[in-house]
C-alpha cells in the first residue's frame, strides 16, 4: 500500500460520517486485525510519549489518526525510548502525571514502566488479536523487529561472519554500534540473561576495542554501507529500508543462530491512564490499516494475526531467535550499570 492510499483510507470515513456497524462483534472476534472503519472515534486530550519518531513513519500513522479523529487533541513528547521510560518512572515517583500512553520501540522499556506498576491492564479483545506468544497482560506489541548483523558486501564475505554472536568478539571484524539505543540495550539484556553477566562483560570489552559508536541504528547501517566498518548491530528494517531507496547499496543482512544476536524484539504500546480513549488508541495501532502500513513502508513484522509479512526478510522459519520472554528484557538497570562500568555508555 502506498503512503497516500493509506492516509486516504484511514481518513476517508470522516467525511461519510457513517458509524461502524458492529463494533462489539468486530472487537470481540479472535481473528486478527480489525479495520479502522470498525473502530470508534477518538475524542478529548491524549498525551503520548513516543520513543523515537522512526523517521516519519510513526509520524505518518499518528498524523493519519489525528486526521481521522478531529476531536482528538493528541500531544506527543518524543525522546529516546529508554529516556522516556525512565522519565515516566521518575515522574511517577515525584507524583507527576503527564502521559496517557507510551509507545516504545522496545519491549524492555515497556517492561520497566510496567514493573513500576504504571500500566493499565489490557482488555481481552486487544490481547486476542495478537499473535500467540506475544500476548501480555498490560502492554501490547505493535510490530516486531529482529536483531541482525548488516555487513558491507564489498569489504567482507558472508562466510567471514560467525553465526554465534559470542564468537564475533574474537573475529577481526570492525563493528559499528549504537550503545545508547534502546534496542541495543535490550539485546545486551538478552545476552546477559542467556549467557550470564561475566560473558557479557567480556564480550562488551572485546567489541569495544574494535567498534565505532553511532547515535542510532540507521546511522550504524549507513556507516556499514559507507564502509566505515565491516559489520554493525542493528534491527533488520534499517537495512531493508536503505536497500529500497538504494537497491545497489553495499550492505546485506547476516543472522546469528539461537542467541541474543537474532533476538526477536517488539515495539509496543501501553495505556497509563484510565478510560476508553487510550485503549481505543491502542486499537487503532493494531488495526489492519496501520499494521500493513508499518509492514509495507517500515518493513516491520506485524504482531496482529492475519497481516502479511514484510518483503526482503528471509522467512521466519529460517531465522532462529532465542527463546526468551520479552518482559524479562525490562531488567534494564543491571545492563545499563554493566555498560557504564565497561565504559561503552
Amino acid at each position: 500500500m502506498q503512503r497516500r492510499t493509506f492516509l486516504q483510507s484511514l481518513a476517508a470515513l470522516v467525511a461519510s460520517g457513517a458509524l461502524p456497524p458492529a463494533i462489539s462483534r468486530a472487537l470481540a472476534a479472535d481473528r486478527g486485525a480489525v479495520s479502522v472503519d470498525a473502530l470508534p472515534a477518538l475524542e478529548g486530550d491524549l498525551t503520548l510519549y513516543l520513543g523515537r519518531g522512526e523517521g516519519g513513519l510513526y509520524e505518518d500513522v499518528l498524523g493519519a489518526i489525528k486526521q481521522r479523529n478531529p476531536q482528538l487533541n493528541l500531544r506527543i513528547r518524543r525522546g529516546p525510548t529508554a529516556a522516556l521510560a525512565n522519565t515516566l518512572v521518575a515522574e511517577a515517583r515525584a507524583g507527576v502525571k503527564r502521559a496517557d500512553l507510551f509507545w516504545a520501540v522496545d519491549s524492555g522499556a515497556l517492561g520497566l514502566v510496567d514493573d513500576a506498576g504504571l500500566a493499565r491492564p489490557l482488555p481481552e479483545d486487544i490481547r486476542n488479536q495478537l499473535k500467540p506468544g506475544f500476548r501480555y497482560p498490560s502492554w501490547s506489541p505493535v510490530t516486531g523487529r529482529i536483531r541482525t548483523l548488516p555487513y558491507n558486501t564489498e569489504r567482507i564475505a558472508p562466510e567471514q561472519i560467525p553465526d554465534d554472536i559470542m564468537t564475533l568478539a574474537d573475529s577481526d571484524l570492525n563493528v559499528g554500534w549504537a550503545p545508547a539505543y534502546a534496542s541495543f540495550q535490550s539485546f545486551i539484556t538478552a545476552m546477559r540473561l542467556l549467557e550470564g553477566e561475566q560473558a557479557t562483560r567480556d564480550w562488551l570489552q572485546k567489541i569495544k576495542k574494535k567498534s565505532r559508536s553511532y547515535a542510532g541504528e540507521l546511522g550504524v547501517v549507513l556507516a556499514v554501507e559507507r564502509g566505515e566498518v565491516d559489520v554493525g548491530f542493528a534491527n533488520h528494517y534499517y537495512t531493508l529500508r536503505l536497500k529500497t531507496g538504494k537497491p545497489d547499496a553495499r550492505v546485506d543482512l547476516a543472522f546469528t543462530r539461537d542467541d541474543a544476536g537474532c533476538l526477536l524484539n517488539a515495539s509496543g504500546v501501553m495505556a497509563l491512564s484510565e478510560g476508553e480513549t487510550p485503549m481505543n488508541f491502542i486499537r487503532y495501532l493494531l488495526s489492519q490499516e496501520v499494521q500493513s502500513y508499518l509492514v509495507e513502508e517500515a518493513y516491520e513484522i506485524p504482531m496482529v494475526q492475519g497481516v502479511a509479512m514484510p518483503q526482503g526478510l528471509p522467512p521466519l522459519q529460517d531465522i532462529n531467535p532465542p527463546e526468551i520472554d520479552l518482559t524479562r528484557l525490562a531488567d534494564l538497570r543491571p545492563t545499563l550499570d554493566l555498560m557504564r562500568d565497561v565504559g561503552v555508555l
Partner: protein
Amino acid sequence: MIRFPRSYPVAALVALAALAPIGVLIVLGADAAQFFDSHSLGILINTLLLTLFTVIGSVLLGVPLALLTAYVELPFRRLWLIALAAPLAMPSYIGAFTFYAAFGPGGEIENLIGLPMPGVHGLAGATLVMTLYTFPFVLLTTRASLRSLDGSLVNASRILGLSLSMSLWRVVLPRVRNGIAAGALLVALYTLSDFATPAIMRLDTFTRVIFVEYNAFGLAQAAMLSLQLLVIVAVVLYLESRVGTSRERPGRTLSLWPNRWHIAGASVAVLIVAGLAIGLPLFIFAQWLIREGSGGFDFVYAWNSAYSSLLAALVAVVLAVPVAYAAIAGRAGRLMERITYLGFGVPGIVMGTALVYVGLQLPLLYQTLALLVLAYVMRFMPLAVGSVRSTAERMDNSLIYAARTLGATHREAFRRVTLPLTLRGIVAGAALVFLEAMRELPATLMLRPTGFETLSTYLWRVYEAGYFGRAAVPGLLLVLISGIALAFMLSGERRAELTMLNDERS
C-alpha cells in the same frame, strides 16, 4: 536610616535565583554513588584536551586575522570583517552536523567530486569545528585591543631597525596579550558548555556524558558530573576576572599598505576560513534542500523557537535593567550583578538537569513553557545586564541631575532621561539573549513542554534519526534568524557580548 538604591531588592532576588541551580545540583549530587571514578577521569581528560586545543586553534587563527583586519589597508575592509565575524551567527552544532555529513568515506564531498575524504570526528574533528566557530571571539577582542594601540611605537621601532614582523612580535603583541587572553577565555567557556558538537563528533566530554546519564534518568550522577564541569567553568571565570586591560593613550592606528601579492594571499586565507565555516554548511544545506525538499518541516517549529526566545529576551531585559542599575549604584549592587553572571557560566545541559529536578518537585512548572523560558533567562540574562550597564555607564549623569533640578521626580527622570538614553543597550541586550536562546539545544530538549518542537530540537531529532536531508530548512532558518538578530545587535550596540567582558575587566 541607610537608604538602599531602589534597584537593590530586585537585583538581590535575581542574584539569589542565579545561585539556586547550584544548590539544586549539590542536593541531587549528594545521592550519587561515586564522586569521581576512572571513567570520570577519561571524560575530564577529553574535556580539557578539547578546550585546550580549541583555545590554541582559535588563537592561531584569530590573532593573525585580527592583525590583518585591524592594520592592513585592504579594499572592502568592512566586508572582510563581516565575513570573519559571521561564524558567530552560526551555532557550532550546525557546523558539526554538516562537517560530519560532508567528510569521510561516502560523505557528501566524496559523492560530489569522487575524491576520498578523511572523516571529521573525534577529538580532532571536534577541535576543528569548535575552532572554526569560536575564533571570531579572539579575532574581535584582539582587534579591539589592536585598534586602541598607538601605531607610532611600531614606526619608531622600525626606524630603529626592526623588521615589520619583528616589531609586530616584540612591540605590538605583548601589549594586546590581555585582549587575546580575554578572547581565549571566552572560547574556553563556549567549548566547555557546548553539547551537540562533541556529541555529533562522538567525543565523550562532560556535556555529552551528562546527557547520557540524564537520558537514563540518573539525575544524581548527571548532577555530580555537572558539578565537576562547573568547577572547571569556575576556574575559567576566575581567570577571566583576573585579566586586566592596560589602558593606553590612544594614538594613531597603525596602517599597513599591502601590495597585490599580500592582498591575494590574505584573500585566500580568509576565503578558506570563511568558506569552511559558513560556505560549506550553507552549501550542504542547499544540496539537501534541492535533493529532498522541505518534507516533514512544519513552520510551527520556527514560530516556537522565535516565540520562546522572544519571551526570554523580554523577561531577561526587564530583570537586567534593575540589576545593571544596582551595579552602578554601589558595591553591594556590584556584588549582586557579579552573582548573576554565574548563570552565563552554567552550561545549558547543567541548567537543564537542575531545572528538571525543580520541575519534578513543583509539578505546576514541570514541562511548561515558563520553566523553559526561566532556563533561558537564567543562562543568558548576564548578556543583557552587560549590554544595559555599559550603555548606562557611558551616560552623562549631569543630565539626570539637570532633570532633577528642573523639578522631575526620580521616576520621571528615569522614564524621560535614563531609559531613552539606555534604550540602545536594552535593545542590543535583548537581541543577544534572543540569539542565544534560539540556538540553545540541551536545556530545550530537557525542559520543553510536550509537543513543543523548536528549530534546534527538530534539527537534533533529524540528526538522531539519520534523516539528514530534513535538516536543510530548519538549519537555514536558524542561520537566517541568527543572522538577523546579530545584525540587530550590532546596529544597536557594537558587540555587546564583548563589551560586557571588556567592561568586566575594567
